[in-house]
């Protein structure tokens, strides 16, 4: 019989709730506090057989992305005289509650039953800190480093929370919506 992860987690974490806007077709649970993620992950892994950490990432809900974060030159193509149209800044979506939070997302899988469960947690943008899952899942190591590098989430308890994808000299976290590119030695004039 397949375990029901949402019911079990809701029983253990009374402050958590079933997410109002779930990831389509998957059970999604919204946690109330950063401390809950460790407890939830432990229950998922030890009791329910969700021993596979699929994904760690986050969504920055600040608003439409700023064009200052993109490097662009007027005409990058040596083959055409006409420059392509400049990138257009995406417009704000109607009725979307943009807010200065990072919406964390964890996904756990059960390899035996093929089930999946998503956990979500909102943390403030300017002080994004959540507990690291490296003590439970080795797979958290690099994925948390990626989220740290690109989104600026600090994972407390991570043994080696360093940049992983972007170069050492790059300042800021590129996947944040207000990221602005600073000119460096590798930019053209």
């Amino acid at each position, binding site marked *: 019989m397949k375990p029901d992860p949402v019911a079990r987690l809701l029983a253990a974490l009374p402050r958590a709730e079933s997410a109002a806007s779930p990831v*389509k077709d998957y059970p999604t649970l919204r946690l109330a506090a950063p401390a809950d993620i460790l407890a939830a992950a432990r229950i998922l892994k030890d009791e329910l057989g969700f021993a596979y950490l699929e994904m760690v990432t986050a969504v920055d809900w600040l608003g439409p992305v700023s064009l200052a974060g993109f490097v662009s030159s007027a005409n990058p193509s040596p083959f055409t005289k006409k420059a392509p149209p400049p990138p257009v800044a995406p*417009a704000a979506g109607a009725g*979307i509650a943009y807010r200065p939070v990072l919406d964390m*997302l964890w996904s756990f899988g059960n*390899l035996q039953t*093929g089930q999946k469960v998503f956990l979500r947690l909102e943390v403030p943008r300017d002080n994004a800190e959540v507990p690291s899952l490296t003590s439970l899942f080795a797979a958290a*190591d690099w994925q948390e480093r990626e989220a740290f590098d690109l989104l600026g989430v600090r994972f407390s308890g991570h043994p080696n929370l360093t940049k992983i994808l972007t170069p050492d000299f790059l300042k800021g976290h590129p*996947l944040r919506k207000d990221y602005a590119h600073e000119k460096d030695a590798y930019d053209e004039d």
Partner: protein
Amino acid sequence: MKTEEPLVSGPGLEMDTMFVNLGPQHPSTHGVLRLGLTLAGEVITKAFPDIGYLHRGTEKLMETRSYHQCVVLTDRWDYCSAMPNNLAFCLAAEKLMAVQAPPRAQALRVITCELNRIASHLIFLGTYGIDIGAFTPFLYAFREREMILDLYEALCGARLTYNYIRLGGVASDVDADWTAKCREFLEFFKPRLDEYDTLLSFNPIFLARTKGIGVIPKETAAAWGLSGPNLRGSGAAYDVRKSEPYCGYETYDFDVPLGETGSCWDRYFCRVQEMRQSVRIVEAALAALPGGDLMAKGIAKLPKPPAGEAYAHVEASRGDLGIFLVSDGGTAPYRLHVRAPCFINLAILQDILVGKKVADVIAVLGSFDIVLGEVDR
């Protein structure tokens, strides 16, 4: 050939360590991967993979591009097997838009993805042979891969970055000539698989270099989040095509090959057997190719999916490729995250290389079959 524990502690056994850079420009790192190895004699005491040399920020680039343009960017992740990349993105976007590809498009998606799996595993087979010191299989593997690339070229004009699977369907149709060529290839390819076994799989030197090397137990593999043949080589029967079938995979009869011990050879042989299964799937799909449209109705030129979040994943050639897509109702994805199997598969290297000899590093690294385009995105 057993790997030894490093003798670095104990009185009178203090040894100077040496730091060795493997890569980023090294033929056996399959791209721009740098491995920093600390050695005590011949034994590795610390290993750190250094990645990011190929980071192009595709997730960020997609935030200003339309959904149709994003499909083009997906080709650039795992460029050795670009069809599943297209597919994963399209499935996620189609989920948001609540459309489904018509049956003929779904069958064509399956055919092209499975052919791509064969082509990708052939690259692995050839280059892994070279890594170990067997040059000949490479030439055979690339001869067969070339035939698949010719099929792709006839189908969509591209040999590497296809942009064939589009939102709501596929870009072009196959004709009787193409299906005949495809069948011809499959008939040519089936006996070649036995040839590979005699050439490489059961070659005593190859066996000595790979069997029992780099063993990953089932639990460790799951804990590190390995997927694809790397996970199945350790004996865990997890395949997205079986656990969450997409594009009608539930209608095809195929097996999921498993390894026994999780050694380099198990991961290798898992891929060889997967090619047989892919041949089976393509044959069945060609035989039952339904007619009808190639594109779902109602896909706009500038799609604006309703606000929401969707996750879709496919069994790509190198593992479980997942796309988490957030839309705020605009013309570009608000946020896109790639669960890149190569990136996650590579992380275990820092753990399992410790205690191995230098000579085994290439054997272990090669057995993971990484593509740096996907590791760094």
